[in-house]
Each structure stands twice: as C-alpha cells, then as structure tokens.
C-alpha cells in the first residue's frame, strides 16, 4: 500500500491549521519559520521573537531591510501595526511566565512522553550553544515539534528515551512530521493523524513504539 510524505510546505500548512485565531506564537529558527506563511486567511496570530518583538511581520522587500529589526535567526523582518518592542528580560518573561500559547521548535529527538533534545548532539569537541531553546521549550503553554520522523538512515527520531542531551523534560505536547501527527502524553504516544494510506501497524513499525489510536 502506498502513501505520500507531506512536503515541508504541507507540513508547515498542517501545523498552521492547528494555530487558533488570537494565539501568541513563537516559531523556532529553521523549518518552523515556514509556518508563518501558511496561517489561514482571517486568523490573527501574533508572532513573538525572543530578541524583543511581538507582532513580527514578514521579511521586508529587497532594499527595505533594517538591521535594527531582525528575528532570532538574525534575518531582517518587519513589524505589523500594533507590534511592540521590549527588552530581553521581558521577552523571556513572556516565555517562562506561560504567556505564549504555542511555540514550534525543531528537534533531534523527542521521547514518547515529550522529553525534547534539540540543542546539542553531544559530540566530543563540538562547541556547545543553547540560545533560547531551553527557556522556550519549558515556557510556552504548548510546545510543538516540527521535524522529520525518520533520519536519513530510516531511524525514528521519536524514541523511548532521548540519547542526545536534553533540552527539557516532558515539555513537548505534539510532534508534527512528514508522515503523522502525534501527541506526547505521560502514558506515551497517541495518534492525532497520519498521511493517507499509512496504516497504524506500519506507523508503529516505523516508530518502533506503541501508539494509542486517535
């Protein structure tokens, strides 16, 4: 039986579909940034950037870049009408204080109960860097992960226990991947949806862990 993987843009659109009107959202660097392009028309979603922006807008037109107005990935962005600037301690108070509704992060591994590993591969000699990952992971009301389910070698990145250094414990609520959407619960994984044609038994085989039915 055949099934089609979600493309990166389809995955971004799948996540955007679950972001409700009025939500305050932080999109992590890299793949999660694409989610902004797929917010359904008519929904007002306020984007937060860790370096002190609420109401962040899209990249400016070429020639209009202002390097005092950048996102967490250091790329030029714009400010929507109603947007605000604030300092770093206030910005992280928004995260840690539980004021952000959703953050979407990339990951190296996520455990079935929601432990997240996304800041270090733990390789000897590598220079460590953490940025805002640990504050975001434990701070938002809901942390969602956007990642490929399988590595290039076909190994599942959803695991029983993370082998990479942890970013946070039991902080991930949902995992959005090219094949499925999973909920992380204290009891383990629960299916939210899978791509058409991918049956439950095959998905459990790919992940190598039990997945409760939707």
């Amino acid at each position, binding site marked *: 039986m055949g099934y089609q993987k979600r493309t990166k843009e389809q995955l971004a659109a799948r996540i955007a579909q679950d972001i409700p009107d009025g939500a305050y959202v932080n999109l992590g660097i890299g793949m999660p940034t694409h989610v902004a392009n797929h917010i359904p028309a008519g929904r007002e979603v306020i984007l937060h950037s860790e370096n002190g922006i609420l109401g962040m807008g899209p990249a400016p037109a070429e020639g*209009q870049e202002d390097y005092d*107005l*950048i996102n967490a990935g*250091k790329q030029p962005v714009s400010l929507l009408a109603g947007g605000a600037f604030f300092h770093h301690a206030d910005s992280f108070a928004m995260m840690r204080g539980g004021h952000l509704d959703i953050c979407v992060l990339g990951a190296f591994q996520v455990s079935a109960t929601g432990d997240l590993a996304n800041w270090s591969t733990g390789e000897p000699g590598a*220079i460590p860097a953490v940025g805002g990952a640990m504050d975001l992971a434990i701070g938002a009301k809901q942390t969602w992960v956007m990642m490929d389910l399988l590595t290039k070698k076909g190994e599942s990145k959803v695991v029983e226990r993370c082998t990479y250094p942890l970013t946070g414990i039991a902080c991930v609520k949902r995992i959005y991947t090219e094949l499925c959407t999973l909920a992380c619960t204290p009891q383990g994984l629960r299916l939210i949806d899978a791509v058409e044609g991918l049956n439950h038994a095959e998905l459990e085989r790919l992940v190598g862990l039990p997945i409760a039915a939707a």
Partner: protein
Amino acid sequence: MIDKIAASIDEALQDVPDGATVMIGGFGTAGIPNELIEGLIRQGARDLTIVNNNAGNGDHGLAALLKTGRVRKVICSFPRQVDSHVFDELYRSGKLELELVPQGNLAERIRAAGAGIGAFFCPTAFGTELAKGKETREIGGRQYVLEYPIHAELALIKAEAGDRWGNLVYRMSARNFGPVMATAAKKTVATVHRIVELGELDPEAIVTPGIFVNKIVKIERVATKAGGFRKAA
C-alpha cells in the same frame, strides 16, 4: 549640574580595571556597541570576563577584543556561529573559558543583579546538562533550578537617543539586552546617535531612566549592518 555626556569614547572608558566583568549589549546585528568595544581594546584592560549573547562574529568588534588575548572568560548563550572562528580557536585551544547559559537565564541573572535579588529559582534547564550540580527545589509541584545574579563592573550598550541626565531610548530590536545590562553594572556607558535636551524624550516612553547610566557618547550613524541603519537604496 549633572552632565553625563562624555566628549569621547576614550574619556568614557579611561578607568576600566584589569579583571573586570564587562557586559556588552547586542543580539545579531542589532544593538552591538562596536565603537565602545573598539574603545575597550584601545584602553587595554586585561583578564576580562565578557557577558554577551554571542561570542563574536568575523574579525571585528567582540571577535577583535577576543583576539587581543585580554579576555579570560565568556558568559553567553550562543557562541557557535558560522563566522565565530576567533572564539572557536581560542576555546578549542583552552585559552578561553566558556560559561554557557540559556538565553532567558542570562537575561534574568543580569536583571536580578540590577534589581538586588540574591538568587532565584527558575524552571529552565531542569534535568539537563546545563543544570548539573546546581541546587534544585520542587515548588508547587514543579521543578526549579537555583540561579545566581551576574554583576559587572562595566556595561557597554548602544541606544538611539539620550540626554545629559542619561535617559535613554532605543531603536526596534536593538533594545535587546541594553536595558537590563544598564541596571546590573557599577558603570554603564551608552552610545547614542542623538543627544537631545532635557524634556525632549517623552517621559512616558523613556526605556532606561538616567539613574542606570553613567556616561553617554554620541556616535555617527553608520550605514553598516551593525549600525542599524537602512542600507542606501
């Protein structure tokens, strides 16, 4: 009469002691006080501990300061960048100590120092390598890690405009660490692009009240990335 306006960067930075902890504002291209970093290099203080979100890019600014060999330790959240080769080499050869701090803890530890807080419990990093060996406590069913403030002898920050009392306003995301660092250092020096008369800054909109600022120096707005100026069309 209070007049915190310094005639030059060198005048504002003449008394930096060896062994000082120096906070440097900025995140990415925004709010980096490059002119003050160059002044610190000219001033020549050694054995410094630098607090910044990053650990220098390319060969200028903070990277140039690291290259002088006068920095003993860097406290930051994200040292690794595509062009952080100066830091990378010093760190790998053991010539530079690194204290890696989650970005929110970095901001809050600086804020705590400025607010006279002795320590605080924070949920960030609980159960991870970065909380190893630190005191923890369960409060209201949640796990927290004890974090201590970061104090400094000197804070170097970049603002948009200021007056002779030291009141400051910033520009867009160049604000970042400036306001909290200004509170946490014994001496804060800010560059501004505009010096205005007392009363010209809207009192409702002043971000850093002058009590936190010791010296301000006017610099030209440069049309470079770090200058935070729209590139010429």
